[in-house]
């Protein structure tokens, strides 16, 4: 890793001087009028009130962001084992095809007949995702996983409203190992969240689940394999029990990478699945987005999907169907993150059936291999076959060493740290997901780094407490950031 010579904290606002510019515009070629003749004066912004944007030359700007790129860790930099985020390699071919002008510069209202290829791609992606889910209908509209969860919750709500059961169906059940977005999504959809504890196997406690099962249950949200990386062995029983009281089963697709080509959520008895195209299907995470969160559903929920739906007409042409009278409406300004869909579609087509299966095999093999190498070195609270990820605890190395110290020290060894302090049911959690695109040599090197850090923790814990040492800034003060928030550039005067 090369860390740049950037001055810590420098922003674009610290550069340049009045009069510089990074881009020149064409001179007006039409007859111009004073702005006050075009727009009423009371609405006009004076020059003194102009937004204080930087005034930098193009090369200054390019150097600034090149410097910043060198202090940013991406998948291309090295191993990025961020649990539940599936930081796999982002194929470059995806980037190239997504930038084809007919995709990148298509206008959402250019009309169906001028968008047949786009609609075909969306339709075919939907068909493939339905097959992967083992379900019969789909929307591609949600812009991210949590957006998909929200849609999933609204579909349940819409169903019960339509069937006159909404007032009593108010509960959504969630295992305590669930992603934070799950309870938040259920809550903003107006449901009451009931947490189900995990048992000593790290799975849903069936006895506790049964205590909550009654006619007030609207559904359950499950992540399979769960956030401990463990496959819910009782999944068929769980979905059956929830169905028996009339509830729906929601599958959080964040961990789908681990069962690709081998098992379909629909066969678990699941009614709703959201996908994270930016995790499972290799589209870039972009520093936090954009993602895409399509939602596949069973037949009973299909009438409530957001509009429009992409359909294939009998003559083989494609259309946008708005005729869903029971639809929950829209959740996006247009049709979702089409640019992300192009990448995911390309990836699935390149993999084919063989490739999909190879993905889950290599992902699960990598996780188990790394787990095996680390389990004598770190505490492994749930020691069993894992799927694509596993969770260690940072406890027990040294009384003063916490998981955050281990994570920060990993950066010094050239690795991005795992997800930390999640799931909440493991104290000092380190949630590790290598993904299938990591090589054995890299896993060995990562395991070595973890082992060295464990030794350092015992012999010289201060090295960990003061980590990272190799980055442009040392460990940043998060308490100060929250107590005295500075969220915009402090202009002088």
């Amino acid at each position, binding site marked *: 890793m090369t860390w740049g010579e950037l001055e810590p904290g420098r922003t674009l606002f610290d550069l340049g001087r009045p009069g510089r510019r990074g881009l020149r515009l064409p001179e007006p070629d*039409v007859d111009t009028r004073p702005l006050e003749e075009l727009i009423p004066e009371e609405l006009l912004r004076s020059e003194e009130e102009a937004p204080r944007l930087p005034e930098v030359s193009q090369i200054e700007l390019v150097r600034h962001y090149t410097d910043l790129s060198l202090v940013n860790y991406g998948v291309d930099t090295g191993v990025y084992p961020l649990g539940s985020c599936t930081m796999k390699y982002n194929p470059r071919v995806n980037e190239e095809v997504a930038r084809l002008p007919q995709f990148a510069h298509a206008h959402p209202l250019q009309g169906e007949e001028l968008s047949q*290829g786009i609609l075909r791609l969306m339709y075919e992606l939907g068909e493939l995702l339905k097959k992967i889910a083992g379900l019969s209908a789909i929307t591609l509209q949600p812009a991210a996983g949590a957006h998909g969860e929200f849609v999933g919750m609204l579909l349940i709500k819409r169903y019960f409203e339509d069937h006159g059961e909404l007032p009593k169906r108010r509960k959504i059940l969630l295992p305590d190992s669930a992603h934070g977005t799950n309870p938040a999504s259920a809550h903003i959809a107006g449901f009451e969240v009931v947490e189900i504890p995990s048992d000593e196997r790290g799975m849903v406690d069936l006895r506790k689940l049964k205590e909550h099962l009654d006619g007030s249950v609207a559904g359950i949200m499950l992540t399979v394999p769960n956030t401990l990386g463990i496959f819910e062995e009782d999944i068929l029983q769980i979905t059956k029990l929830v169905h028996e009281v009339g509830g729906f089963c929601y599958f959080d697709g964040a961990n789908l990478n681990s069962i690709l080509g081998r098992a379909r959520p629909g066969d678990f008895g699941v009614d709703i699945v959201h996908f994270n195209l930016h995790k499972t299907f290799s589209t870039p995470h972009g520093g936090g987005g954009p993602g895409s969160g399509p939602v596949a559903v069973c037949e009973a929920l299909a009438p409530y999907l957001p509009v429009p739906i992409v359909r294939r007409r009998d003559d083989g042409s494609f259309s946008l169907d708005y005729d869903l009278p029971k639809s929950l409406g829209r959740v996006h300004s247009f049709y979702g993150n089409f640019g992300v869909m192009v990448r995911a579609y390309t990836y699935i087509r390149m993999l084919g059936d063989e490739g999909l299966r190879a993905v889950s095999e290599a992902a699960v093999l990598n996780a188990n291999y790394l787990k095996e190498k680390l389990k004598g070195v770190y505490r492994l609270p749930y020691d069993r076959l894992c799927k694509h990820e596993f969770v260690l605890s940072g406890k027990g190395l040294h009384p003063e060493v916490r998981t955050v110290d281990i994570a920060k020290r990993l950066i010094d060894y050239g690795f991005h740290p795992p997800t930390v302090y999640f799931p909440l049911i493991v104290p000092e959690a380190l949630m590790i997901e290598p993904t299938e695109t990591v090589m054995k040599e890299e896993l060995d090197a990562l395991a070595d780094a973890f082992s060295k850090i464990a030794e350092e923790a015992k012999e010289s814990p201060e090295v960990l407490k003061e980590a990272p040492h190799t980055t442009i800034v040392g460990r940043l003060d998060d308490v100060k950031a929250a107590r005295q928030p500075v969220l915009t550039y402090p202009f002088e005067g």
Partner: protein
Amino acid sequence: MGTREGGSLRRSEFIPHTPQDVEEMLRAVGLQSVDDLFQDIPREILDRYEPLGLDPLSELEAKRLLTQIAEENLDPRRFVSFLGAGVYDHDIPSVVSYFMTRSEFFTSYTPYQAEASQGTLTWMFEYQTMVCELTGMDVANASMYDGGSALAEAMLMAHNLTGRRKFLVAESVHPHYRRVIRTYAWAADLELASVPYDDQGQLDKGFVAENVDEETGGLLMQTPNFFGVLEDLRNLKDALGKGLLCVSAHPIALGIVKPPGAFGADIVVGEGQVLGNPSAFGGPLLGLFACRKEHMRRMPGRISGRTTDAQGRVGYIMTLQAREQHIRRAKATSNICTNQALCAFAATLFLGLLGKRGLRELAALIAQKAHYLARRIEEELGWPRRWKGPFFNEFAVETPVPPREILPRLRERGFLGGVDLEPFGHPNALLIAVTERRTRAELDGFVEALKEVTRSR
């Protein structure tokens, strides 16, 4: 299938494992075959699996296929576009496109580990500053999904802040946004009332004043609105009492138009696609979101904040995370996690390149060109503007024939003539958007083409 005898993986360019790797690794974990890795999945589930029936494609084949699919669409390079209604055909500076391909940025994720993510966190901080400067607000987040969901989230935030359940929504807001707002309102059990617009195309302030009551959580509006008309924000904040003024604004317009913050707006959102992002058939887009300082702890989304390390060096870190779903779970201000970060980075680059003067010049250039075209259409074709209020980049004209009859013929002449408003409830109205990309020759050519297609009916 992927597994051959002996459990080796088929090699793919994206999966680095050799058969020897697989064998050594399986041995290390004490398993015989890759199938054993899945022995915890109930047999009946595995047995039910059905393949997609999809052969793998090489990169060459995939590129050929995707190019073929792309060619089934209109080639935007062959048309002069006047399409808008929320997504616009602006030029994307080369520097912006270049940095979209810097993998240190696009292959990273949410900057959970600040010290290894100073690149992302720094541009987030810059972006937040720029959004505040544009909107006249105090704090901004690092992005929402799009303009529509950002306005809906503004409503949820206003509801959380005021505890009130009734919201006024201007009917001049983009119909798609209103549909998103309806969905979110239904989810949160909020009540909506529509604010009509006058013949200027501006929302009826009298109606707002008359319909605000103790239950009103706020007003949701947009400027320029769906019809391209700039709303007059004066006195609206006062009319709302304790309700919050939530405004969706066009970020480029804010180069020359007074920001909502100057009129007391509480939450300002917007569609940021126009800031360096391609139209991409309507997504990814970029939801701008900003608010007043006193409300920042109820704001949804990621926020980058400035802090220091032990040596006093300045750096950036995600902050105020107690608002967020991964900490607060069901009590979070929003469920948003993954957002539109890379699009926000594009916006940062775009605004950084233009700078203080450049943004004003761009906004003025667009306004000049749009007004030039509107004037020529009115003078030479006699088509009046459908709504007479002031506008920035987009305006609706009354057409003598339904737009659906002339749009195909304009296309034959190389023009995407605008958005037909008939499906939105306004027959014989055409919404025309102009950007800096349109040259005078194109604008003049468009006027001539309009003459031809109406004359030759």
